[in-house]
């Protein structure tokens, strides 16, 4: 087996549902990075996680994790932490304490001391039935179950939605600490710009079951700019470097500032100011384009 820089490799992964086609998806997750999986509701993010984890059987394609085929080697799951819906719902009538005992059996490396510590830290009442917990509390329980067996790969499906400010800070702190280990990798689906900004390195953009862009966060951050310009001739408005424009205060949005600067010089135009866009503005433009 050759050592690969990629912790997870997905090839030609696809599955058809009655009203939805997933894939084919080809992706590689580099070891030591945090990847944000971003897309509109219903774009296939959760399906992607379920296919990786073999919770769903793909029609086609392979998932290679830690250099081995995921579907043929179920023990690979011991090194993966998954926080998402659909996993504990069937045990919803049970108190959290009982579910923990079940989950414990799945993972030989389950750490009881760590579990107790996290239950206290996130103020989880273990006697409560899972189905009676609020959305945020369920998210915290999923997160704890994903972390206590010290995995190498974390798959987090919207881990912060509904979670209170304090717990969110704790979770972020734990994820940063997790990433201090050079062999660790996180794939996280989220709609929250703040979390993408402070945690992620790479962004995978998903639309209708397909990956429409794989980008380095800082690369798009540097390339996309809003530029205030002395006038807006039609030639500029229609140019492929110009994604959007505003006539009232002559300005434009570009996805390649360096090239735009050259174009402006060529056309004898000048700009007075230029600013980076907010990450969610960039992502929204990219998603609209991919629709």
């Amino acid at each position, binding site marked *: 087996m050759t050592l690969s820089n990629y912790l997870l490799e997905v090839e030609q992964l696809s599955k058809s549902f009655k009203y939805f086609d997933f894939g084919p998806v080809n992706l590689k997750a580099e070891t*030591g*990075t*945090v990847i944000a999986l971003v897309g509109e509701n219903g774009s296939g993010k959760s399906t992607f996680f379920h296919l990786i984890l073999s919770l769903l059987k793909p029609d086609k394609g392979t998932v290679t994790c830690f250099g081995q085929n995921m579907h043929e080697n179920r023990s690979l799951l011991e090194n993966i932490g998954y926080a998402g819906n659909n996993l504990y719902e069937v045990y919803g009538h049970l108190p959290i304490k009982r579910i923990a005992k079940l989950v414990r059996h799945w993972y030989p490396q389950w750490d009881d001391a760590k579990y107790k510590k996290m239950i206290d830290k996130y103020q989880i009442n273990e006697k409560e039935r899972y189905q009676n917990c609020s959305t945020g509390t369920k998210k915290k329980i999923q997160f704890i179950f994903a972390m206590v067996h010290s995995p190498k790969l974390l798959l987090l499906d919207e881990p912060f939605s509904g979670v209170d400010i304090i717990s969110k800070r704790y979770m*972020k702190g734990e994820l*940063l600490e997790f*990433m*201090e280990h050079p062999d660790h990798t996180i794939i996280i689906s989220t709609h929250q710009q703040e979390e993408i*900004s*402070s*945690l*992620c*390195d*790479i962004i995978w953009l998903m639309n209708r079951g397909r990956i429409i862009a794989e980008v*380095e*966060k*800082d690369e798009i*951050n*540097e390339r996309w700019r809003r530029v205030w310009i002395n006038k807006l001739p039609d030639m500029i408005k229609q140019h492929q470097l110009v994604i959007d424009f505003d006539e009232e205060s002559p300005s434009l949005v570009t996805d390649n500032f360096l090239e735009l600067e050259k174009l402006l010089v060529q056309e004898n135009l000048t700009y007075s*100011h*230029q*600013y*980076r866009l907010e990450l969610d503005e960039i992502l929204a433009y990219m998603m609209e384009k991919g629709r």
Partner: protein
Amino acid sequence: MKLPISVSEGSKEPIYYQIETQLKNLVISGQLAAGTLLPSIRALSSDLSCSVITTRRAYQNLENEGFIQTVQGKGTFVRDIGQQVKAETKETTGYSYIMKLLKDLSALGFSEKEIKQLIQKAILEWEGGNDFE
């Protein structure tokens, strides 16, 4: 540890370069003493909302220039660069500030003579201000 570094939204300088120069300035001004443990690449990236790819590049450049040193398993530390290098780097940095200022003033349409007058005026006022401190 939080470093007093920020990334400018309106700057044309690449993010890694902004981090690199600000960190270098903290070292040569003595605000970060030799031996200081710097935040990990991941922690600094999170503070600055950038990726580890960017921060790693800044750290690597500073390491190549001899300002910081990474010790396997322990972290990244500020190196003792010595008085002479410190003074030299300080001068180069100061010089580049002045060059940038001259370029900006020239872009605004000032002539050489006007720039000299303006700088002289500013220095006089600045010295006067300093007397009151």
